[in-house]
């Protein structure tokens, strides 16, 4: 075995492994990337029901209620970004840090009726913390300018929209 053939073997092995790694990565990316969407985006262009997305926004105050489906508890609540609200259904125990009026990120799929079925609900470790995506979306829609202090309470957003629309 000369140095050259050994090098050739190593190069072949490297190419094979790195190539398959790249192929696997691309394949996995194309089917498993999860996009973040705000409720208004979901309303405007609903993704297909087999495509999981991350839905982020604030839990609308007073919207949380429970449905009991044959002994399985389902939590239902509205998630809003101030423009629109989406009804979320989640089977399971909500995280300890879940609160009405605070931010939340839900992983799941949009159903044909426009509702959202979550397989996972994340609330962050800190009550003053807002997921970056939610904060960005609030700034983008003009609901919150961080220069003027804390984010407004979630329960007021839809009413703000309504006022604007009405007046």
């Amino acid at each position, binding site marked *: *075995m000369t140095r050259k053939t050994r090098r050739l073997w190593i190069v072949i*092995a490297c190419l094979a*492994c790195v190539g398959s790694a790249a192929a696997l*990565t691309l394949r996995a990316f194309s089917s498993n990337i999860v996009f973040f969407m705000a409720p208004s985006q979901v309303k405007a262009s609903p993704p297909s029901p087999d495509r999981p997305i991350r839905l982020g926004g604030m839990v609308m105050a007073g919207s949380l209620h429970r449905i009991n489906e044959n*002994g*399985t*508890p389902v939590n239902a609540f509205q998630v809003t970004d101030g423009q629109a609200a989406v009804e979320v259904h989640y089977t399971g125990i909500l995280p*300890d840090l879940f609160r009405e009026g605070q931010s939340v990120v839900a992983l799941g799929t949009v159903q044909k009726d426009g509702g959202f079925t979550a397989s996972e609900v994340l609330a962050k470790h800190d009550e003053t913390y807002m997921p970056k995506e939610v904060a960005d979306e609030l700034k983008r829609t003009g609901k919150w300018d961080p220069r003027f202090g804390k984010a407004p309470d979630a329960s007021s957003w839809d009413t703000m929209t309504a006022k604007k629309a009405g007046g």
Partner: protein
Amino acid sequence: MFGPEQGHFALALACVLALVQFAVPLWGASRRDARLVGLAPYLAVSQLIALGYSFLCLIMCAVGDDFSVQNVAANSAVSKPLLYKITGVWGNHEGSVLLWTLILAACGGAVSLFGRNLPDILRGRVLAILGGVSAGFQMFCLLTSDPFERVFPAPMDGQGMNPLLQDPGLAFHPPILYTGYVGFAVPFAFAVAALIEGRVDAAWGRWVRPWAVAAWCFLTCGIALGSWWSYYVLGWGGYWFWDPVENASLIPWLTGTALVHSAIVVEKREGLKIWTVLLAIATFSFSLSGTFLVRSGILNSVHAFANDPARGVFILALLAIVIGGSLALFAWRAPSLTSTGLFSPISREGSLVLNNILLCSICAVVVTGTMYPPFMQLLAGRTISVGKPFFDAATIPLTLPLLLAMGVGTALPWKRAQLARTFSHLYAAAGIAAIGVVLCFWRLSGIMPIACGALAIWVIAASASDVLRRIGIGHTSPRGVWERMKNLPRSSWGAALAHIGAGITVLGLCGMSQAQHAIVEIHIGETRSLGGDAWTLLDVHDYIGPNYKAMQADLAIRHNGKLVTILHPEKRDFTTQSQTTTEVAIHTNFITDLYGVIGDRHGTGKDTTYVLRLHRNPLAPWMWLGGLVMAIGGAFSLSDRRMRIGAPKRAAARNMARA
């Protein structure tokens, strides 16, 4: 005596000592001045003492409830138990950076103490590099995140600690994990020293490997402990979330594992030198980026601290200097290193090369998956995330050939192997693996779990049969076996044990892929069945704890009518922090975990219902047990005489020849 000012002064002193430790030995080595180089160990030890004193001061501030110290006021409280006052010191940003540099200084101290057989020049340079890195992070600590900052007026009581973090598992997780991260600074320093010197030989491989193995053991334990913590504290029944912070610990583990293996080739065959040096640099660079880049808020994570832009900029500059500098040095000096060992592709060296390629491919996938979302955010402005489905789909297929090769590799001889002969040693293991395939088809569902499970059994069987063959079971008399057992190097035992540990972990992961769970809402006295067990909610009662109110359930589990256990899951309400935590109840027989969580209470009177989450997790404890076995295997290798003694004679002879 142990006030914050003394601590602050000691920290500044340590920083100055580290700077001297960086400059003097390097200068001395270039001038071949033995006296200047000989100062390095003394400087390293005094830096360690100064920093240790400084850390002790911070602990004393926390224990003595000195709320005039900003850090203590923000993270401690009078009512906190003593253990958490101490461990809380490293539960925040400032304290954890101080702990990080303390461990780095301890590595320097260890090199000074245990590295007596190293050539003076090499030891001086290694300590200088460690001192340089140390100085950088101590400056970061002093200038941007001072743990001893005073606050005026001092508050009466501190703000307390997140109750979620008040847990013994999390208390000891950071020091172990940090020791793993920081431990890779020593191979890094060895690599940079070798580049400056322009020489890598078998002796270098022999000196570097124990440090890499030690760091690897700690990192393995740290990752396993973190995963276990999230399993029993967070109450989701999950053990690994592919969160950026978790990936940041997995990436250096993968390259570190590759390093531990490629250093063997340097040691035994003087091959793969350039590659090993690059791996040593890469592993520490990933460790650094892991601890700091993730927390700097560049990656979106819960653990982010960078509200202060100065910190982010400082850290980025520091990372650029350390990583960029070492890579530039590598590009400049690496071509002067030449490999000598020749080997055929089918040989021990060949299998180690394959191991390295596969581990680095997996690492590349994990890096891509972790870094792609923030880059997309930055470049395209789209918020995306990749999670478990992505990592499962992309990493598991690459793990399969790795497991297959793990079984064959240790049976191959160095230099050139005959496949037929090697396979003749592996018949028994292949037979067991064939039984394993049947077993997996019977118990597991899904192609990937079955393939991984069967290969894990293959790894365990092949590693065990390799050791059995070497000690001559079936060939020699019992006395001969005993003799051979004593003579078989401990590093061989260690390698077999580590491979078996990896197999056990993979089996645990396969078992967990079959986990079942149910979320139910039931009245007291009702029964639900899950995976063949009947779960009955016997009673729920409230009680008052030291600083919380709790709701505790009695949950009986029966199998075929026979009582297995009664679980007591709890939900705790911390009124002062207005936070609730979930206390999971787990019953384990080391084959299956029964895992119960209690959620909310609804309704009143007779109509009261409780939401429960029931999990049945097959082989769950094996995941962490395997990690422990891997670390024990590493520790076993470390106790090998050859690892400790190194090759002093040869090096001494060479140094004399050069002088």
